């Protein structure tokens, strides 16, 4: 599904990713872990097309398409969606506007017509209930005045409505208390099926107790230094990152 090959990325002249390769297949959940500053967020940001990142070498393909040649919105329409670590507030743009416009854009890209209003409302209300969010929230502006936890829930709500093929979640657990984390994790887990994949970027193992990954990768110095299964995450929790850093330096 997603193929990242020898990816080199610079930000303002500093090389952050230095030859990262990663393959994600449909049905899999991958977690990218690593110490701060290792370039974890850079990977998902580049895949989602965020500005300010220069790809100097390597390639990213998604279902055979060259991702780096696609516009930001084309990536999302194709099913590549990034849940932000710090979702921005968009004053005045109601959540319902964002959800409906985004869903219709995706449908149009697939050659389908606009979603009928009753069908849309039914879908959105069901997803709101999944995320334990009140319908009044649809009339509120995107993230405006939301607590950290509400913003994260909102990111997942968007995922549930838009049903991405590859959901990338950047530090989705940061700033969440344990109850909110459970709701968010439940939402993410409901996206899991054999046709979809999930890429989690996280500093802490805690999240992975709730969303159990198939593969765990440790990012050190812009490269994947070690890969393993969920067991690796638990090892990192008890031993920290230093031993991986030392191993990779050796």
């Amino acid at each position, binding site marked *: 599904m997603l193929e990242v090959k020898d990816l080199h990325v610079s930000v303002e002249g500093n090389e952050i990713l230095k030859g990262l390769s990663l393959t994600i297949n449909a049905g899999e959940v991958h977690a990218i872990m690593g110490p701060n500053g290792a370039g974890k967020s850079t990977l998902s940001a580049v895949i989602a097309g965020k500005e300010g990142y220069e790809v100097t070498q390597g390639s990213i393909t998604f279902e055979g398409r060259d991702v780096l040649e696609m516009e*930001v919105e084309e990536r*999302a329409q194709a099913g590549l969606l990034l849940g*932000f670590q710090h979702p921005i507030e968009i004053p005045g*743009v109601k959540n319902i*506007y*964002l959800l409906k*416009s*985004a869903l219709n854009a995706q449908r149009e890209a697939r050659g389908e017509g606009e979603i009928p209003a009753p069908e849309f409302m039914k879908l959105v209300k069901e997803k709101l209930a999944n995320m334990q969010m009140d319908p009044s929230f649809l*009339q509120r502006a995107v993230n405006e005045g939301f607590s950290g936890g509400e913003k994260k829930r909102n990111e997942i709500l968007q995922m549930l409505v838009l049903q991405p093929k590859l959901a990338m979640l950047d530090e989705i657990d940061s700033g969440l208390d344990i109850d909110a984390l459970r709701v968010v994790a439940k939402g993410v887990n409901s996206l899991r099926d054999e046709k979809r994949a999930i890429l989690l970027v996280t500093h802490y193992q805690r999240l992975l107790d709730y969303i159990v990954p198939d593969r765990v990768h440790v990012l050190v110095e812009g490269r994947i230094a070690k890969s393993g299964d969920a067991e690796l995450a638990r090892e990192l929790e008890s031993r920290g990152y230093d031993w991986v850093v030392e191993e990779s330096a050796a």
Partner: protein
Amino acid sequence: MSDVQSEVQTFLDRLAERNARRGEEPTWIAARRQAGAARFEAMGFPNRRVEAWKYTDVRAIARGDFALASDADFSPATAAALTLPIEAHRLTFVDGVFSAALSQLEGLPEGVQLLPLSRALEENHEAVGGPLGRLTGVEFSTFSALNTAFMEEGAVLRLAPGTVVEKPIVLQFLSRANEAPVMSHPRILVEAGGRSEATLIEHHVGEEGAANFTNLVEEVILDRNAILTHYKLQEAALADLHVASIHVEQARDSRYTSFNLNLGGGLVRTDLITDLNGQGADAHFYGLFYGQGRQHVDSHTLANHNAPHTTSNENYKGILDDRAHGVFNGKVVVKRDSQKIEGFQSNANLLLSDRAEIDAKPELEIYADDVKCSHGTTTGQLDEEAIYALRSRGIDRQTARGLLTLAFAGEVLELVDLDAISERVELAVAGKLPERFNLAGLVEAAVALGDE
């Protein structure tokens, strides 16, 4: 004869024609009519060397020849489609002429007098003569002088002390697509007694293709503790010419809130002035204008803090596309010894095209030392970070821009208590945006959701 003289003469000739057909009038009206004409003739139309008109060229009015409408015929079906869908007490004017058929005056609550100016004069002209022209005299501008020379119709609203009017009061001005353009000089007089409370909606709308000149003068007198919310919704046809001079006088502890919503008109100029004359008087000026094509929309506001402990708060937002031109001039004046004043003012403009233009000028004149005042104006484009956030969800750039423009207007609309107005304006704004996606459909969906 110079151009300027011939411009003025065209209007004076029209006035003479009208006067010849006028019946007997009370002497005070005839005298003011004369004073208005004399003042108009002396001043002529303002040119751009006059500071208050520096950015607004009125030649489209000055060079026009406008007749006066003689009837108020209007298709009821068209009128119904244009009328705000709101339960209200309503006076309707067609090209300035009162239409009883399109008005709704039954069931006025006790303590409320709402009637066309012509009828108010018939019933008791002296009661009108006292307040009329006290706030907006012929000296104010060429347009107020011209209005005074022609005045014959309009609306009088009187609220007895303590009267609270539940339903909004709508003054509807319909403009027709006439074969030859016409002009009207409506005159509105509002006298709100102590502790009275009402919502006044002034709605300017009309047939597509209308190209008339409306020259409105409005005087609003708020007695102690009176509360008035005043909507001015201007959605006239794109060739309509619209000048409005609104003057408010506020006694102690009164509150005046203005929503000046300008969506239509080819050339639009509004002067909004309040005199805060008593302690505790409080004024709010909210404005939204959206110009497209070659529309020109000019808003001049002035808050005169003539008494201590008075407050004013202003927020105007402008959206300009194509080659539209916006003007915002907001002034706060604090008189000597008017201490403990709060005067806040903000103006933000959004330019959607490289050729759109805004001239914004906030002004503060403070002659007291214990005051809290601030003002600011910003002009910019849409927030790129927000555009990215929307695109990252699959929304194309054009739709993202549309959503953000709608949001920009929303910051004023969310202060509007009347859903019929905020929804109508939001839909109008959505309808003006490029139709890449059906934004109006989105707004409708949200409205439907809100109704559930």
